């Protein structure tokens, strides 16, 4: 039977494995069940899932957090703007986090990931499912980032 997955532990484990390798310091703050319509961050990265599991996975962050991620992903000491290479590296970041997290889910089903999409703007609201989603809050250096997800599937 299909069930809504709890990914908090897998997400924390993935961040522990992946972020320090990119020189990003982080700590887990909390997980919260969000309303169907959530307030988003100025920079959002979306990956959709289908086949073995269905849902959406959104990493949200401030511009400052995005610059830290870009530094880590492109191996640079400092980055000041978000150009095309930077956007690509942000998409690689979300694909890596999402892929590595789902690889920890004990299922034999094949999960397909869609191409990552970057969404930016002011006063963003997002709805990733008709049911409440879960959102994990993380501290990254001196700023925050969030990972919202609503994934259903059979284990």
């Amino acid at each position: 039977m299909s069930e809504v997955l709890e990914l908090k532990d897998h997400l924390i484990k993935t961040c522990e494995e992946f972020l320090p390798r990119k020189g990003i310091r982080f700590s887990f703050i909390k997980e919260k069940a969000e309303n169907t319509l959530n307030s988003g961050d100025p920079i959002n990265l979306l990956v959709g899932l289908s086949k073995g599991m269905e849902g959406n996975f959104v990493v949200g962050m401030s511009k400052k957090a995005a610059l830290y991620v870009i530094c880590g992903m492109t191996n640079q000491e400092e980055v000041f703007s978000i150009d095309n290479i930077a956007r690509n590296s942000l998409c690689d970041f979300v694909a890596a986090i999402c892929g590595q997290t789902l690889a920890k889910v004990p299922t034999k089903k094949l999960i397909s990931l869609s191409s990552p999409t970057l969404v930016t703007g002011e006063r963003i609201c997002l709805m990733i499912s008709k049911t409440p989603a879960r959102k994990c809050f993380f501290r990254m250096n001196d700023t925050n980032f969030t990972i919202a997800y609503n994934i259903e599937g059979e284990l």
Partner: protein
Amino acid sequence: MLREIALITEKAFQEVSIELLETEFLPGKRFIIDFPFKVAIIIGITGSATGRLYLECDLETAVKVALIMNFGERLDEPNDVYTYLAEFGNMISGRATTYMTDKFKNKEFRLSPPAIFSGKGLETLSPRIKSKMLYFRGKLGKFFVDIGFEEEHQ
């Protein structure tokens, strides 16, 4: 392949608009949605090709669509606008992928659930995707649809 998929998506959009909203949207020249608050629906595509379908309109158009989908009744909750628009996007992408599967017999397309973003100065980008943009105008407003796939699948 992308050109054919764009034509299929155009057909799916027009059919769903007529069936569901009883209104016609005509494809036309490029435009910019100048209303500051926009609503965007993103539906991931996986299977034989990885990509996404993107649907955008202004908030005013989204409200008009939601009211028609709610049989003209006042919406119980403001969030219903997003739920209805997500359903609209889901129906278009579902119809489009059905046509794609019919057209490209050896290929399989799957959809992820719709994700809805709304905000001021909304901008989206899928760096690995090569896409075709479609612009529709109708009496309810304007819609911008962008369908694309990662370049290795072109």
